[in-house]
């Protein structure tokens, strides 16, 4: 974001930053050096931690790029000394398997609608809970908060029997509906609290400017709620993408997502680690891409300059 700031703006930033420093006591050269070294050390440490955290991911990636024989005989780190081991054969095998390809498609068909429905419905509901006056609003919201603590497991049996009499059972919409139902309370709760923190004056200004509720929602609340909505979207996407339990219970074989497919491919003692690791890496890459695509919406201080 800051790279897009115009020159005039950045000049202003520098000036206000300078003004801000005037009040602080003047620091000696040594003190500033210590501070610089300190922040440098922190950065080095953070980079080390980040690298350490990436080790399993890299391990998975390299395992998926080695043949089953190599994986059986040596650890994945040997690729650093013998890069010739690297091969795309595992991925080729995986993509030749129509069951796996369709399970990837099923995962997308389950995750994208679930996330989209939750984000849309939760943000509309959150706006209503935060800013519209209607009878019973607070009781209803308390009800939503209460739903947060209902464990998913208690619903598995009742929902199964509900689905039982309908063509829904085993289908992709059945899984989507379940995810939406269990994702909404948290989504509404998160967004409602974020929207409620938007200064009332802003909404009233928009009302005075001639905005109807839907216009205010679209042109004031949504842009300001961006970070919260992006977080909800990312969390919901990850949660549904990685879900195994709900899919195991509600998805029939034709609609099973990748998690179920991978689990059923699993052989004893991880004997087929080559295929598993390739599949696992594929299933991991998409949420990562989603995260990186939306992370720019986590902008600090979007509210600055609104009031006072």
């Amino acid at each position: 974001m800051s790279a897009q700031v115009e020159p005039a703006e950045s000049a202003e930033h520098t000036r206000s930053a300078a003004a801000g420093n005037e009040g602080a006591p003047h620091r000696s050269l040594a003190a500033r050096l210590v501070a610089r070294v300190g922040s440098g050390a922190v950065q080095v440490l953070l980079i080390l931690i980040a690298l350490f955290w990436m080790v399993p991911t890299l391990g998975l990636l390299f395992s998926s790029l080695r043949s089953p024989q190599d994986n059986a005989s040596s650890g994945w780190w040997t690729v650093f000394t013998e890069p010739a081991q690297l091969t795309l054969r595992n991925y080729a095998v995986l993509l030749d398997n129509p069951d796996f390809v369709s399970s990837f498609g099923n995962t997308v068909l389950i995750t994208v609608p679930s996330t989209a429905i939750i984000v849309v419905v939760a943000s509309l509901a959150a706006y209503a809970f935060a800013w519209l006056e209607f009878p019973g609003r607070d009781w209803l919201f308390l009800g939503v908060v209460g739903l947060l603590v209902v464990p998913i497991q208690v619903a598995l049996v009742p929902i199964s029997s509900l689905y039982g009499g309908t063509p829904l059972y085993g289908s992709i919409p059945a899984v989507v509906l379940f995810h939406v139902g269990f994702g909404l309370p948290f989504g509404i709760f998160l967004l409602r609290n974020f929207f409620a923190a938007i200064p009332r004056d802003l909404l009233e200004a928009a009302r005075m400017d001639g905005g109807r509720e839907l216009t205010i929602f679209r042109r004031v609340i949504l842009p300001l709620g961006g970070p919260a909505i992006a977080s909800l979207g990312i969390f919901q996407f990850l949660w549904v993408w990685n879900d195994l339990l709900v899919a195991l219970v509600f998805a029939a074989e034709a609609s099973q997502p990748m998690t179920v497919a991978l689990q059923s491919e699993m052989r004893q003692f991880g004997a087929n680690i080559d295929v598993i690791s390739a599949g696992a890496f594929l299933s991991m890459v998409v949420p990562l891409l989603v995260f990186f695509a939306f992370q720019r919406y986590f902008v600090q201080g979007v509210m600055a300059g609104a009031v006072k």
Partner: protein
Amino acid sequence: MARVHLSGIGKTYPDGTSAVTGLDLDIAEGEFLVLVGPSGCGKTTALRMVAGLEEISSGTLTIGDRVVNRTPARDRDVAMVFQSYALYPHLSVRDNIAFGLQLRKLPKREIKQRVEDAAETLGLTEHLDRRPRNLSGGQRQRVAMGRAIVRQPQAFLMDEPLSNLDAKLRVQMRAEISRLQRDLAVTTVYVTHDQVEAMTLGDRVAVLKKGVLQQVAPPQELYDHPANLFVAGFIGSPAMNLLQGRLEADGSAARVELGGQSLAVPAALMAERPRLREYLGREVALGIRPEDMEDAELGTGDQDTLLTSTTDLVEALGPELLVHFQLPAPPVVTEDTKELARDAGAEGIDAAAPYSDVIARFSPRSRTGTGQPLRVRVDTGHLYFFDPATGDGIWGEPASATQQKEGTHA
């Protein structure tokens, strides 16, 4: 531009508390009306009811020829400047100003033209593409003004728009708002707790106390002829000194006894305010403005316009001295003066105290100092008298005159 008419407007909350009661105001086309009063007096609630942000519990609100009691804010065609400015942080200055026009689906060319005209008027042209967070307080305030004027509404509503600015900027913006309002001639209702803003900006000023209108009049009239103790004490800085005294006849003139001292009340003043005769031989609440007192050493005057005391404190402000001293007369204790004391942050008034604190505004040539004997000459032609029980001003006309005046205005 339109006339804004409030008739018996009241606001009662569900818990039964009442913020505004029976507010009658008739604001003429193009008039600048200031609502002023201590915090919690209902002035902001009144403004928000006109804006449509607060439901009206009783009474009728007319803007132009329309009764708008049940019209939502967006359809009332009034613009509001918020105390917090309430700028849209995600929009540039240009889009902030244009927002209302965009929602009204005006042609793009016209929006651009109007926004640029407004920016020109307010000196914002070079900031149009910046975000609110990169603006100074004064610039944000201007953007808030721009958002209001660009819509060319029926009326402007301003809720303490200057209270977040520092003192110097406030003086400058005050003058700008005044100039802008006169140039555009848009009916304006302006809420403030700052009486200097009220006096300098308003064509007329309405003083509210606890949700009830006390007086509405042009600023000078409010200062010269306050309807009651509350208005008298609220308008003017430092505030009018209020003392318990006793009015005694003295031929065609009179004198007011303050403890052991007395002041002459000229015959001309008695003739001007015939109702004063009713109070001869009775207790009155006497008001003396600090600016109607002067150091007796700096001129000559009759002996019976002098008060003597001892200087407690001198505050030298440059062009004037504020001299604090005590007079041997009890302070005025009514509901009005208690409310004033609360607004000033005092704990209350001691009714039993035999002395009152008095502040006088002296010429800087005065040589008085702390602990020195003090002789004060009072401009007795400008004394104020109030009924000590009701707090109403004692003028020539019946007590309800101010209400009738409001009714016949415009």
